[in-house]
């Protein structure tokens, strides 16, 4: 079987990854803003006795010179990489813009195929493009595609094979690329566009124009932003809370007794019965009950990412961000951090200025990720009558602290001039339900995987620590109790001095949700040892954490460095010093903030 290496190239946000997902059956991350793909991604497909390897590159506007790291990856690969054919993806409604890069790609002298993507949007806009004429003018194959539905994929694969087999090198008759005159290239773009455009764009007001009147308005835009955040949380809680309660009941009232009965019936040793009921179902099960919340939260986060709203927020908040030395585009990685901090740090690769990148990397861990949302939800539902408002408050505190951190860094270590800002504003788009659910399913799968691996491992360790030394009856004298009691003086002034809280809190550095599984394990072991009648975990936690300490607890969880994966990514993408300094800084800030809140609460 012959192999063909095909490189996907195009302007940012033209649907290269969407197309690759259809071509190779991959499930790579997509979004509706420039810079979703920041690293080289691959996928392969078998077609007509060929193994076609697709290499998806970050979007670029020009081959001239890279400004940011992601552009460098693309340009470097195109000039030095090993590939057989270029698949140039074009956003058809913006064909005139994209042809500039196409003509530069022609200069690379490699077989090339053009995918005229987003053909559905073109129809709505009234534009009609003659792809046969384009094929004739550039001596290559041009195929109309739709990245949303996968329309035109087979034709595209056939065109790739045909171009490769016949070594179809694109060229433009009567034009020489040798003299490199910019004006001539632009004239050529205009000429080709005039030739292939059958009907011009309709001059009508689009949905994007209408929505932008409101969402980009300096006053209404901000109100809309807060309202969207609030409504998102409100819907997430409204839908997920009954499901979480149902699952909680199922795990604790049905699954635990069933597992116990089953194990007792086969005369399993008592430690195994305890392990299953306390560490497995008690610990991991508590985290798993939040699967509906994670699913619904990611549904809305993905909807925001794919709708095109994120770049609008970037435009809207620029007057604020430029006061801390950043331009609005930096808000996109920050918003992505609401899903997970790790891809958000990777997303900073699109920024051209190194100091900008470091500054944003230092801001990202303050943005509450989905793992923290799970913990917040549990405590908000347990302790507070208005959980949505409390969670919105915590998210806003995170945003304020990230701005404060950026302000301090900008005034001290990262003094710099404000860099220029230029950004594409994509139209609003509604993703297909298939795409939306595929992304949400992948996030949910990742949550389940983490619950089954990291959180399970932590639960086992905590359970073992609470049972060692072997035969010790008093929990406070076990290794778990010893660790908790040793650390509790540090947490005493902030209202979190109970050894059970500190023992739960520290391993949560590996994964935030582990706080809940750890607490569940500790309280279950304790209830069993004391021979108490088991009550729901929420009631048990109320006995350990007084309501006055609950907000301190949540503040601490919010502020101190999110998790080990974030720490490692900060190290890799930023620097080792930044990662370690941030660890100390976030702990100090978390302790200080929590201390102030706890003391003020006691004072009043």
């Amino acid at each position, binding site marked *: 079987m012959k192999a063909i290496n095909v490189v996907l190239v195009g*302007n940012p946000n033209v649907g290269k990854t969407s197309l690759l997902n259809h071509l190779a059956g991959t499930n790579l991350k997509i979004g509706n803003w420039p810079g979703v793909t920041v690293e080289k991604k691959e996928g392969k497909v078998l077609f007509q006795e060929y193994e076609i390897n697709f290499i998806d590159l970050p979007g670029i*506007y*020009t081959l*001239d*010179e890279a*400004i940011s790291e992601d552009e460098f990856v693309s340009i470097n690969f195109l000039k030095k990489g090993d590939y057989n054919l270029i698949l140039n993806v074009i956003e058809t*409604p*913006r064909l*005139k*813009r994209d042809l*500039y*890069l196409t003509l530069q790609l022609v200069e690379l002298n490699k077989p090339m195929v053009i995918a005229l993507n987003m053909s559905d949007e073109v129809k709505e*806009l009234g534009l009609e493009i003659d792809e046969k004429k384009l094929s004739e003018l550039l001596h290559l194959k041009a195929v109309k595609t739709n990245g949303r539905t996968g329309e035109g994929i087979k034709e595209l694969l056939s065109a790739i094979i045909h171009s490769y087999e016949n070594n179809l090198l694109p060229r433009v008759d009567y034009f020489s690329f040798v003299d490199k005159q*910019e*004006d001539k290239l*632009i004239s050529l*773009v205009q000429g080709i566009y005039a030739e292939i455009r059958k009907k011009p*764009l309709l001059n009508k007001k689009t949905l*994007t124009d*209408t929505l*932008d*009147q*409101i969402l*980009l*308005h*300096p*006053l*209404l835009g901000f109100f809309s932003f807060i309202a969207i955040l609030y409504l998102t949380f409100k819907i997430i809680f409204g839908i997920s809370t009954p499901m979480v309660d149902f699952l909680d009941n199922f795990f604790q009232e049905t699954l635990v007794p069933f597992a116990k009965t089953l194990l007792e019936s086969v005369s399993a040793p008592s430690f195994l019965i305890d392990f299953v009921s306390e560490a497995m179902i008690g610990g991991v099960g508590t985290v798993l009950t939040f699967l509906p919340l994670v699913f619904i939260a990611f549904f809305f986060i993905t909807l925001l990412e794919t709708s095109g709203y994120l*770049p609008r927020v*970037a*435009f*809207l908040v*620029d*007057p604020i961000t*430029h006061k801390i030395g950043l*331009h*609005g585009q930096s808000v996109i990685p920050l918003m992505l951090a609401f899903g997970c901090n790790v891809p958000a740090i990777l997303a900073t690769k699109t920024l051209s200025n190194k100091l900008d990148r470091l500054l944003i990397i230092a801001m990202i861990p303050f943005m509450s990720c989905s793992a923290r949302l799970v913990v917040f939800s549990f405590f908000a539902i347990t302790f507070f009558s208005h959980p949505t408002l409390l969670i919105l408050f915590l998210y806003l505190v995170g945003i304020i602290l990230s701005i404060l951190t950026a302000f301090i860094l900008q005034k001290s270590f990262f003094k710099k001039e404000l860099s*220029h*800002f*230029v*950004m*594409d*504003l*994509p*139209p609003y788009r509604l993703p297909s339900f298939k795409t939306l659910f595929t992304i949400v399913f992948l996030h949910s799968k990742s949550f389940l995987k983490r619950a089954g691996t990291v959180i399970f491992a932590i639960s086992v360790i905590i359970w073992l620590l609470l049972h060692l030394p072997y035969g010790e009856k008093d929990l406070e004298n076990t290794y778990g109790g010893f660790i908790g009691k040793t650390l509790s003086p540090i947490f005493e002034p902030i209202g979190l001095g109970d050894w059970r809280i500190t023992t739960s809190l520290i391993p949560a550095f590996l994964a935030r949700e582990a706080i809940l599984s750890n607490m569940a394990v500790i309280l279950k072991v304790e209830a069993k040892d004391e021979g108490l009648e088991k009550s729901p975990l929420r009631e048990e936690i109320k006995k350990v954490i007084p309501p006055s300490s609950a907000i301190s607890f949540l503040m601490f969880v919010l502020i101190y460095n999110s998790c080990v994966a974030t720490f490692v990514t900060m190290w890799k993408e930023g620097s080792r010093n930044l990662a370690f300094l941030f660890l100390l800084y976030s702990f100090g800030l978390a302790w200080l903030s929590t201390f102030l809140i706890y003391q003020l609460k006691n004072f009043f």
Partner: protein
Amino acid sequence: MTLNEAKCGDIVVIKGIKEEDVLAKKLTAMGIRKNETFEVLKKCGRNLLIMNNSNRLVLSSEIANKIEVDIIKQNPCPIEEIKCEFTEEAYPDSEEYCQKRYRNQKIHRKGHRWSFFRRICPFLKD
């Protein structure tokens, strides 16, 4: 004149980019090319939002200062040119706009009464 000097609603044609550096090449590749026509949709803080067909771009004023343009159509009512600050100063032209618009129709008082509403709801301006 430069693009930064254009007002909201103005339609301009690009005459050139002052400096020929990497950024200028990127702007060209992004669609800001000689003889292309753009409409200035919004000026918010230090940024401009410009549009050409379905190509919408956000530029900071430093970049806009490097782009030379000619105005081909001027907006008579630049109501959305505001500074993104929640103060009265943020709307320097709006009072004048309302007076001009309603003076001839002898409904000046009514127009004045609704001016704030029109400011925060620009989509209702027509």
